[in-house]
């Protein structure tokens, strides 16, 4: 299904989705991030990519698995599988759209994670094609994506200056477009050509290039013990920016958090964790098999470009460039895979 949405009617469409929690990018604190669309919100879709990817809406940083308490000396567990409102995210960039199928695979292939899927099934992603690379470190085309990829999205919108071209991709996407009714106009004969022109122009804009993408996986395997990793991680400060902001990083930790006056009352929670923290692989013995920053950089890169490929036949990097732009010391995954491949 294809429709036209004049920009002044965007709000009218959103208003038809009154049983949804609608989120859209908003520029606050000098950074674009998703925020809830309220009655008075002026939706602004001129965003660069948001600082946080939309993975949080299916895989929040903190998820309660169950609550525990002691009743008459007997432990009692209360399940807490979430039952969220349907949630619609506007303005998802195609790189982030492509991140969701990676996460879907992780949370369903061997075990269907009920917490993830309770949120994921209620989630509708309305994408917005990139008419140009909005960040200096975009490289979606090097990793098999495109500035107008529909993968992982339910709807793809394309900005045509005064209006959006809106394409329904999944059942969920068709439903939210149908709900819009009069907010949408019919597609005119020359719109398809215009959309294609905008998409082609976007594809031709220069991005960060990965020279030999197909050779990367093998090269990482071959360079596993290379001193290059140490050199490239020399100034790594070991923070969690690259992984926490990544649209596909999904590692987590589980802890019991006491909420009551005694240790018998609390919650078991899943929280994001990441391979750049030393304790991620710390054994109870005190031995750490990934004991230094070089090993941790290698793990992050190898997981995305080698292990995920071996396990799931697709790369786990969508070229959004957040890990590069956000790195406090300039560690650059494009340069890293290039150097490993060329050495």
């Amino acid at each position, binding site marked *: 299904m294809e429709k036209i949405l004049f920009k002044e009617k965007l709000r009218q469409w959103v208003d038809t989705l009154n049983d949804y929690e609608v989120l859209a990018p908003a*520029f606050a*604190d*000098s*950074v*674009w*991030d998703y925020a809830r669309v309220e009655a008075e919100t002026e939706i602004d879709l*001129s*965003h*660069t990519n948001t*600082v*946080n990817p939309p993975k949080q809406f299916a895989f929040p*940083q*903190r998820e309660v698995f169950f609550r525990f308490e002691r009743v008459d000396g007997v432990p009692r567990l209360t399940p807490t599988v979430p039952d969220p409102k349907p949630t619609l995210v506007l303005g998802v960039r195609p790189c982030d759209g492509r991140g969701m199928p990676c996460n879907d695979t992780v949370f369903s292939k061997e075990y269907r994670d009920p917490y993830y899927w309770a949120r994921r099934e209620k989630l509708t992603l309305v994408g917005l094609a990139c008419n140009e690379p*909005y*960040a*200096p*470190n975009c490289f979606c085309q090097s990793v098999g994506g495109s500035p107008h990829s529909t993968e992982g999205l339910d709807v793809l919108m394309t900005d045509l200056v005064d209006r959006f071209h809106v394409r329904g991709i999944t059942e969920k996407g068709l439903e939210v477009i149908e709900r819009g009714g009069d907010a949408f106009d019919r597609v005119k004969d020359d719109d398809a050509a215009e959309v294609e022109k905008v998409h082609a122009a976007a594809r031709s804009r220069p991005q960060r290039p990965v020279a030999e993408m197909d050779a990367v996986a093998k090269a990482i395997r071959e360079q596993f013990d290379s001193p290059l990793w140490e050199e490239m991680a*020399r*100034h790594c*400060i*070991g*923070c*969690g*920016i690259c992984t*926490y*902001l990544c649209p596909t990083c999904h590692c987590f*930790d589980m*802890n019991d*958090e006491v909420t009551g006056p005694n240790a018998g009352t609390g919650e078991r*929670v899943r*929280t*994001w*964790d990441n391979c750049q*923290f*030393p*304790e991620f692989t*710390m*054994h*109870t*013995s*005190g031995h750490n098999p990934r004991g230094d920053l070089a090993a941790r950089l290698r793990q992050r890169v190898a997981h995305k470009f080698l292990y995920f490929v071996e396990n799931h036949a697709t790369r786990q990097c969508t070229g959004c460039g957040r890990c*590069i*732009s*956000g*790195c*406090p*010391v*300039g*560690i*650059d995954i*494009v*340069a890293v895979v290039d150097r490993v491949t060329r050495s």
Partner: protein
Amino acid sequence: MVNVDELRSLAAELLEQGQVRSLIGYRRGTAGVLAEPCTIAAPGEAETLVWDPTCLNNLALFLVEERKQQAAASAPDKRPVGVVAKGCDSRAVSVLLQENYFKREDVFILGVSCEGTGVIDPRKLSARLKGRWPTRVEFAGEDGFKVSAGGDETLVPARELLADRCLECREASPRLNDVLFGEVVTERGFDEPFRAAKAAQEATEDARWATWERHFDRCVRCFACRAVCPMCYCPECVVDSTTFVNTPGTSAEEKATRIRWCERSANVSESAVYHLTRAIHLAGRCIDCGECERVCPVNIPLRLLNTKLEMEAFQQFEYEVGRDFERPSLLSSFRDEDPNSFIR
């Protein structure tokens, strides 16, 4: 003016003659407009060094890393490490010396003066360009910065792009140095010291708490603020019980009964504990390099927490962090005239 060629030739000379074992400086990165830290050991690499308003990192952080590696080395190279340092960075070196983290002879400071300007605040650039990145930022004399973005070149007055810490800077050239490039500069009259911290405390207590509650709620607990801080060198961090070192001798009992001061959940309560604990642990130690705030991916104004405490240290004890490494630190010194109204 800082002459970058002179900086490069001195760096090459120091390495050539073996006066330093390596040298930490800035070079152009591949990741975008900002310069990146580099450590060079060969004289030929000195020509990659740069100095411009995008040299944000406080390189004293890497002296801490060097020292940790030295401590672990079986035959450590005793020669000093060279480091390029701005005024604020040199104050960090002072504090590390004051705390005996390493010795004066372990470090050779190539001071660079920020002179009329200083370094840019990426969040001010972001606000100006609404999230887009420029391709280049250069010094443009006293007037400010030349910013190239989207094919256009704009001259932006220094005040509009300078980091708040630079606007409030009291010492824009490194007092502690072995050689200084550029002019000796103290205050530059952009803003009075602690202006932002003073302005922030004008609000009511309720409004301040609402602001911080919102920020702590946004925190993703990537710990970049801690990781980038040269003063956060503890191998074990109190807010993060999983960093507590386990050795083969650590008993199961000890591991099981460790107090968790701060849970892993990134919510308001836990993140408030984290940030406030960090702020208190930096009281009298923060030299206001602003790196914690700069690296924060969601732009939490962390510097306000630290400068608030430094303001108290200054107002109550006339203590200026990093001014003189031979003087005792704030927390290890006592003067008869120190105020004691808070002791009851």
